[in-house]
């Protein structure tokens, strides 16, 4: 077990301990706020695309978890966070074979996100409920992850030399 853990990326280890910390001890305001931040989420390389596309979006100034965690009560937030967090950690350490080929928001995630859209944009949807589709992002397909092409700015520039070489071990 330890051997396996130490063979992992250092960043992942940090994350593992962070989550253990959150679940096992009383969380301080600071850890909580850090674990809401884009920097924290993008610690995991598999979150890169989500992060990069988000960072170039109209929502770059809000935190991942403004969308991805429930905000109706502090308890709910912590429970969802711990649950989601532990799945992420589990997948990235012991259960790595089972990591999905492509990440998709789970149904639970979608419900949470949708509620968050509504809570920020209450004013907009006052006259018209905007509920023609199941989720806000069925129409707003590109908010905030740019689904239509999933491409960031760097795709539209020449690639700096030797970039591919530096990714030789995968990324």
């Amino acid at each position, binding site marked *: 077990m330890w051997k396996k853990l130490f063979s992992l990326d250092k960043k992942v280890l940090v994350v593992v301990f962070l989550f253990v910390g959150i679940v096992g001890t009383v969380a301080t305001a600071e850890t909580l706020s850090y674990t809401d931040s884009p920097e924290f989420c993008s610690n995991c390389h*598999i979150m890169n695309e989500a992060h990069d596309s988000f960072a170039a979006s109209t929502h770059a100034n809000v935190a991942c978890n403004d969308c991805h965690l429930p905000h109706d009560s502090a308890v709910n937030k912590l429970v969802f966070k711990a649950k989601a967090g532990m799945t992420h950690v589990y997948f990235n350490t012991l259960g790595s074979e089972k990591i999905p080929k492509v990440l998709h928001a789970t149904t639970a995630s979608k419900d949470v996100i949708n509620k968050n859209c509504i809570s920020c944009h209450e004013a907009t949807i006052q006259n018209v409920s905007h509920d023609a589709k199941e989720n806000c992002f069925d129409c707003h397909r590109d908010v905030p992850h740019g689904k239509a092409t999933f491409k960031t700015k760097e795709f539209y520039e020449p*690639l700096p*030399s030797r970039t591919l070489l530096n990714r030789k071990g995968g990324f």
Partner: protein
Amino acid sequence: GQTEEASKQSKSTGLAKDEYRNEAFKDLFPLHYESYMKNKKEEDTKYNGSVKRSKFEHDKEPYLPILFNGFGFATEYNEDRGHVYAAEDVRNIKRITDKSVGSCLTCKSTAVPKLIEEMGDDYWGANFNQVVWPKAEAMGHSPIGCSDCHDPQTMDLRITRPSFIEAMKTRGVDVTKATKNEMRSYVCAQCHVEYYFEPSKSKVTFPWAKGFKPEEMYAYYEEIGKQQGFEKDWIHNVSGTPMLKAQHPEFETWIEGPHGKAGVSCSDCHMPYERVNGKKKITSHYWTSPLKTIEQSCLTCHADKSEQWIKTRVDEIQTTHMEMLHKAEEVSVFAHYYVNKMITAKVDEVKIKAAQEHIRKGQWYWDIVAAENSAGFHNPQGTMATLSKSIEESNQAILIATEELMKKGIDVDKLKKEIEERMKAVYNEADPFKKKDHAITDSFPGQTPPPPAKK
């Protein structure tokens, strides 16, 4: 810091700058090499896939042996398969004869850039069996490999085939300025494109000066091609028409279609990121039907859809497409035989020429669609429009023929029956190599001109 940056700059694989053997990359990039070796897998999809099967089989395009009669493509033409087979397949195909030229190796071997460097423009026209293939083999070349798309030292994507660079210039595009996104299609467009052998040097050339659409490429051949002395790929053995052969215009089709217009590159679908070896993510180097990897190839962008939805949708598009392709091919078959009858009935030459013009155009329009390998998916509307034009042109040929044959008192009902008999004979022949022979009979004598006397 600065030194890190500097070391990045000078970082190199340590390989020679003209390395062309795949094996040299194996230890440096084991994950990519392993992914590349997956190209050995042979597995079919509904309309495409990677099993080496004759294109003449009943579920593919059974009348091609009539439609390409008199040309190598009526003898042997197979479903394409993995990049690893390219060298083996070009070596074994019956389309290669003792007269074939070096140009045929251009898209099949990593030795080509070096051969061009060494031989200069003599490479293109050099004899394939005698000169070019033995050289490549002696060099220990690889079939389509790392060096075709990557600089062996920096691993930067690069263009290694001059024909593409030159053709893009005719479109006003300087490929050295390409973005990352463009390069992810350009590396494919070195090969997955329509080409012809420019007659003076037999050089591989792409007919794009007027545009990428089938009509624009046709106009190129009629004007620029003919000016260069390139009139035809062959004389059709049924209708005696000087024909054009179309080849794998994936790039041209895609670039005019919904994904091309939206900037979705070939690699997005055919080289999706995949998680290998537990959790490392690489760009897949298994080039095959994306229908085998819908999750990675499509659902990254179409995240709101399910794998089943994508399957069904692609099937609907392809089924609509194939139905009309088969129709266009059938009308084209009839046109060829009608003109054969015009010839044997000694109809006015001018009328024969007029009908042949329509045949040439009609066949170009379905062939540029049939030779494309996505069964319509790369551009559903555009390929369908091209098929409409094909149907109209072939019908024009039939109409001219009917007028002239009726004048000569030929029984066209009998003619139609005879054509159907030929189609059945070709369809029912089990040996793909013999199918072409059933296209010709006493009532439909071959029209291939006798070979010119030896010099």
